[in-house]
């Protein structure tokens, strides 16, 4: 496109070819008004590995139950310990690397986790373009629709959806402004804000644009559980976003995902807590949003657009990082690897530590199931396992919050240690935890600069 086209492009970037309404679910229709965004959005079919992220295309023999001819690599093959780690739960059957948004719907429909147990319609909340599905099911009442679909069998709910997450799930069709369409996130944020003393928080009304550039991703990249018989999708944020607050919440409501097959412990499954982990990192503290790194600006012709090919930033270092960091691509990739190697080392130690405790409890139960120490040891396994799983499930391998990720794993190893000590009857002395010192009250000294001499004592 030459200069004239560039100049023209600049003035009214997008012609309105079609009328977009609150029921236009098909992204291809939106693509008529925003062809560049639609093309980029379609690229999420691409599968390329990075060191710890991305996804590898694994060819597969289509079967009657699962017609997919390409899938992402299995995490259970990559680390066989995970089968024992989740013994007795669906994740021990089939758990794969995540891949592009284009696959989210078919990957959920055909995962073996659908065969081992009857999943509820709730799963659809994060795996398809469900805004229109909920609105229709609730006759225009999003929350009522959400509640109705949750209670359905997954297969029935899935029949109502056609597309993976698409434009209408993040954008207001009239103004293209970002908006939250997921009830799970709306209610999760309301509970979180209430715990911070802000009542009646409405994310679509109260969030700033910078926050929205993170919140649209937080709709799905979060820890969750299904609450009560109505299988209501709930984000466990009522006490805060740290793993410690989430653990306290689960203990308070007495929730378990399953009873561990090896140890009988009341165990929790953590799932992709990117939003929670990211919130503890230096980037979040500096106001950097998910979209800054995962949907950075891309120059196309005379315009800058947000790159809707959502993928690992390590496949897009130039645009994702180098606007803010002047180091070379190799150096930035080395920094990410450095952080991830440390997390990976501690993640492996924490899984070993938790499995050692799990096996020891199993042995103790077999030896004498009335042993009074078993109950306490199982509680330590519950904690060690959830803290370890919180980092294992998080998909940036520590990058989103490097020190926090390793602190969580250090605590997990300590819970495993205390569990073993309890099992062996070693007195676990409860020491009063040392309280951190008070904040620095002294205001820094005014510059002394030249002149202020002091005789040396």
């Amino acid at each position: 496109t030459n200069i004239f086209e560039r100049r023209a492009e600049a003035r009214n970037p997008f012609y309105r070819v079609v009328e977009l309404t609150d029921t236009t679910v098909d992204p291809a229709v939106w693509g008529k008004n925003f062809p560049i965004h639609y093309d980029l959005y379609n690229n999420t079919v691409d599968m390329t590995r990075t060191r710890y992220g991305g996804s590898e295309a694994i060819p597969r023999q289509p079967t009657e139950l699962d017609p997919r001819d390409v899938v992402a690599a299995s995490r259970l093959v990559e680390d066989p310990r995970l089968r024992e780690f989740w013994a007795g739960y669906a994740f021990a059957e089939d758990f794969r690397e995540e891949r592009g948004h284009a696959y989210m719907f078919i990957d959920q429909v055909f995962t073996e986790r659908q065969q081992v147990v009857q999943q509820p319609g709730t799963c659809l909340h994060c795996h398809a373009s469900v805004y229109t599905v909920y609105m229709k099911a609730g006759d225009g009442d999003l929350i009522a629709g959400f509640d109705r679909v949750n209670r359905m069998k997954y297969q029935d709910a899935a029949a109502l959806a056609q597309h993976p997450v698409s434009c209408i799930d993040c954008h207001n069709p009239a103004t293209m402004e970002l908006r939250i369409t997921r009830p799970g996130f709306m209610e999760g944020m309301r509970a979180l804000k209430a715990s911070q003393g802000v009542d009646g928080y409405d994310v679509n009304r109260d969030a700033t644009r910078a926050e929205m550039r993170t919140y649209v991703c937080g709709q799905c990249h979060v820890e969750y559980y299904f609450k009560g018989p109505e299988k209501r999708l709930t984000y466990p944020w009522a006490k805060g976003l740290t793993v410690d607050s989430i653990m306290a919440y689960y203990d308070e409501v007495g929730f378990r995902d399953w009873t561990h097959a090896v140890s009988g412990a009341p165990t929790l499954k953590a799932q992709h807590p990117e939003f929670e982990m990211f919130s503890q990192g230096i980037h979040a503290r500096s106001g950097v949003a998910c979209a800054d790194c995962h949907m950075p600006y891309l120059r196309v012709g005379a315009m800058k657009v947000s790159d809707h090919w959502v993928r690992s930033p390590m496949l897009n270092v130039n645009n994702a990082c180098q606007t803010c960091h002047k180091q070379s691509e190799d150096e930035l990739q080395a920094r990410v690897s450095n952080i991830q190697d440390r997390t990976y080392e501690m993640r492996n130690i924490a899984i070993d530590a938790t499995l050692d405790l799990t096996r020891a409890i199993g042995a103790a139960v077999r030896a004498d199931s009335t042993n009074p120490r078993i109950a306490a040891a199982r509680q330590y396994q519950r904690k060690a396992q959830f803290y370890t799983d919180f980092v294992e499930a998080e998909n940036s391998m520590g990058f989103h919050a490097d020190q926090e990720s390793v602190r969580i794993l250090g605590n997990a190893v300590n819970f495993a240690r205390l569990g073993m000590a309890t099992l062996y009857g070693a007195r676990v002395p409860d020491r009063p935890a040392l309280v951190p010192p008070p904040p620095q009250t002294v205001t820094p000294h005014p510059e002394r600069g030249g002149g202020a001499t002091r005789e040396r004592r």
Partner: protein
Amino acid sequence: MTKGQRIAAAAAVLIGTAAGLGAFTFVYAKGYSYLTTDPAACANCHIMDEHYSAWLKSSHRNVAGCNDCHTPHDLVGKYATKAKNGFWHSFYFTTGNFPYPLRITGGNKEIVEGACRSCHEGITSAMNHGGVIAPPGMEVQPAREEIACTHCHEYVGHWVR
């Protein structure tokens, strides 16, 4: 002299010395150059050396001088800002008590953000919700706050580190 005359005389002396002193500082600190748009004018003060040398190596050296970013592009706004900053600059310069390293403050930051948008109106036109003009009858919510250019392009003017 009557009381009134005495006050007037005192006032005249005061204003005279202030003007004289101001003029002297103006000349000595090459204040007159301050009114020009030549970036070297800012570098008269050593406190601006680092910004000047960093600017010389920046992507805007041939396209934008200090005042292209640090004063509004409309004529009135430009000289009003020059006057305001001119006063505060000389005030702080002589008194010398300001936090170093320098931090741009409120009003001046908005001026810079405005400058980016005026030169880069084209390339950033899609950034605010795709530059969508709502169909008639549909009230467009204000685009919430603009996303700040300096959120990502903080060092585009001068990478002083």
